[in-house]
């Protein structure tokens, strides 16, 4: 059954990044599956108003104040009137928020619940529990997630993190990983897409590396503290000292770029380390295929799409064993290191040795990754979540048979597996958030509800035009799916 879905996040194109492309890819695939998807984000410079992207994906760039790293100013209620207008004119049924730092997303989920819509939240990042900023974010997250229908995390580590941060019932958190568009990340030797009709299943040839051939190590990352640039600064001179035929290519920009450059000058390594500066996402593949090893020194990472992209390009991956990274790739594609200098140097050495002895079949990586990660699969699994929260799937189907015991459910749940919209039930859920926070949250919810009533009176629903849908093509997939159901 097709849904009308609104993806809400502060982060969307034209700004580059993982969350942005996740939203875009997921939306496109959901549209392919017959749903209607719109994206609500804030206005970027030179990108305002209502726009359409390929495939009829409609994007609302709401004019809003941006304060820090493309995040809007958190005003709890000011987004409501325009959000309500958009939701009504697009006949939205499910609001899907992305990214826990996006205040837009939190507000949208709160308002959507007030308006009686189903909500889903996708968490893309890991957070600590100790520092002030994290505590604040976690509190905010707890506020929003007290009354969300379902949460999606990109990895199991991320799920664990989110469940702890927001005190959620683990059953209402699903893990759906990111994916990559494998066609955009193919190795140099791989035949171009689409494969020709003659079915040239060209078996990729193994490339032999002699003991004196140069091995190039690629690093593509924003140069921030949390991406492990300090680790990189410490490790590069040692790696280069012990392996004479190794080169580095570093792409990306950020506040830590200056540290890297200083390190290069101190050790006079300019001829062996190439700094490319910022690269666009579509150019990443061209950088990656120049190398043999991808080094990912990140200190925290919820998923790490970039290592999947690297493996898809046929690179052997050396990465730190943090966050969700160990779940992402199978063991034969990666060498893990602890997030410390010595271990990173040792792991890189191991990877170089393995490549030199030609033990790693990197040329097969692309096809393996292509089988493991696809956006179509992500969209399918997300659709299942939508089915679950709107009650199309039965509780036992969606949450598993053990969970169907009524005893394991919290008292505030209404009909099996579906969060009740009654204000009193919502208040109960918020009240449990903390001694003071609970009361504050309840106050916010009550004000939000009053605001909703006010808007219903002063901006009546029947005065809002219903937007026309993008004309849909007849899906080719229909017939294929029918066959599948037939087989079952």
């Amino acid at each position: 059954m097709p849904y009308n879905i609104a993806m809400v996040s502060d982060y969307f194109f034209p700004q580059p990044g993982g969350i942005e492309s996740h939203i875009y890819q997921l939306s496109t695939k959901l549209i392919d599956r017959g749903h209607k998807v719109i994206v609500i984000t804030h206005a970027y410079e030179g990108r305002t108003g209502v726009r359409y992207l390929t495939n009829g994906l409609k994007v609302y760039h709401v004019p809003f104040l941006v304060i820090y790293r493309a995040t809007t100013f958190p005003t709890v209620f000011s987004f409501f009137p325009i959000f309500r207008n958009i939701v009504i004119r697009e006949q939205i049924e499910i609001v899907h928020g992305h990214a826990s730092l996006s205040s837009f997303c939190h507000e949208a989920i709160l308002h959507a619940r007030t308006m009686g819509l189903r909500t889903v939240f996708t968490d893309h990042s890991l957070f600590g529990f100790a520092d002030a900023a994290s505590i604040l974010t976690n509190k905010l997250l707890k506020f929003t997630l007290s009354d969300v229908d379902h949460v999606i995390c990109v990895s199991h580590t991320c799920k664990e993190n989110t469940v702890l941060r927001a005190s959620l019932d683990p059953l209402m958190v699903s893990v759906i990983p990111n994916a990559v568009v494998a066609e955009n990340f193919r190795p140099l030797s791989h035949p171009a897409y689409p494969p020709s009709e003659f079915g040239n299943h060209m078996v990729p040839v193994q490339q032999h590396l002699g003991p004196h051939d140069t091995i190039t190590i690629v690093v593509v990352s924003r140069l921030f503290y949390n991406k492990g640039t300090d680790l990189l600064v410490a490790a590069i001179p040692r790696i280069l000292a012990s392996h004479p035929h190794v080169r580095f290519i570093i792409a990306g920009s950020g506040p830590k770029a200056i540290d890297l450059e200083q390190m290069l000058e101190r050790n006079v390594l300019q001829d062996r380390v190439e700094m490319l500066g910022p690269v666009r996402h579509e150019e990443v593949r061209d950088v990656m295929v120049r190398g043999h090893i991808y080094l990912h020194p990140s200190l925290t990472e919820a998923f790490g799409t970039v290592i999947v992209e690297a493996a898809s390009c046929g690179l052997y991956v050396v990465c730190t064993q943090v966050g969700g990274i160990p779940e992402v790739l199978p063991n034969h594609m990666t060498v893990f290191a602890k997030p410390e200098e010595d271990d990173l140097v040792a792991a890189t050495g191991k990877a170089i040795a393995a490549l030199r002895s030609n033990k790693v079949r990197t040329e097969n990586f692309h096809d393996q990754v292509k089988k493991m990660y696809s956006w179509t699969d992500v969209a399918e699994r997300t659709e299942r979540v939508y089915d679950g929260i709107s009650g199309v799937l039965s509780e036992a189907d969606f949450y598993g048979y053990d969970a169907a015991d009524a005893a394991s459910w919290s008292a505030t749940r209404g009909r099996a597996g579906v969060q009740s919209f009654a204000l009193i039930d919502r208040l109960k859920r918020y009240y449990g958030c903390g001694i003071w926070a609970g009361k504050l949250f309840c106050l916010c919810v009550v004000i939000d509800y009053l605001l909703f009533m006010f808007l219903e009176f002063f901006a009546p629903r029947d005065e809002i035009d219903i937007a026309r849908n993008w004309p849909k093509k007849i899906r080719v997939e229909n017939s294929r799916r029918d066959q599948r159901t037939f087989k079952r």
Partner: protein
Amino acid sequence: MLTVAPHLRTRRPSPTTVEYTVSTSPPPTLPLRLLLGLTILLRVTIGLSVLLLLYSKFLLSDYSTPLEPYSSRPQLQSNAFIWYLAYNLTTSRLGALFTHLATLTPPIVLLPASFTILYLLSLRLHTTESLLVLRGLGIQTSSSSSTFLSGSTTRFIPTEKIQDIFVNEAFRGFEVRYYLVVVVEGEESVVVVFPRLLPRRQILETVWRGVRGCLFEPEEKAG
């Protein structure tokens, strides 16, 4: 009661000409006409009395020279007649009442209040905006002004200057509205049709289809 939601009226004097009018005025029936006449009468009365009040205040100040009484009635179409009328009015009982009122109100209250009232009185009750399409010539947009003091603003765009006409959406205040725009060649900004009323999608779509159908010559089939 006197205004309604913006609605569309179409006039088609010839097959190649069509005029779309969007207005907030209800269809003119006899009671409505009477009511409108009454409001105009009311406006004129209130406006004149405000002017009289201002004039009495002026007479009380030091800047004015006292009016001289006329011995005989001057000719009707002359300046003197106006002064004669003013003198008679201010010396009448009504004039005395207004003078009394004028002494009571301080000028700091009287001036802004009376100007506000005069402005409010000059506001039009209805907004009417129209789009006239002439095949082979172009389109003319017109939009009534908000006050009676100025006429409607019209703009003619010749066919060869029109690049495109389409319906778009944009944020306006706290909502997203549909609007019909004309893209004019060589101009930085587009021309919005019905800029004040911004009618609803249904109306815009009708107008858009009509304009597309009427403005351009139907393409002749080859052969």
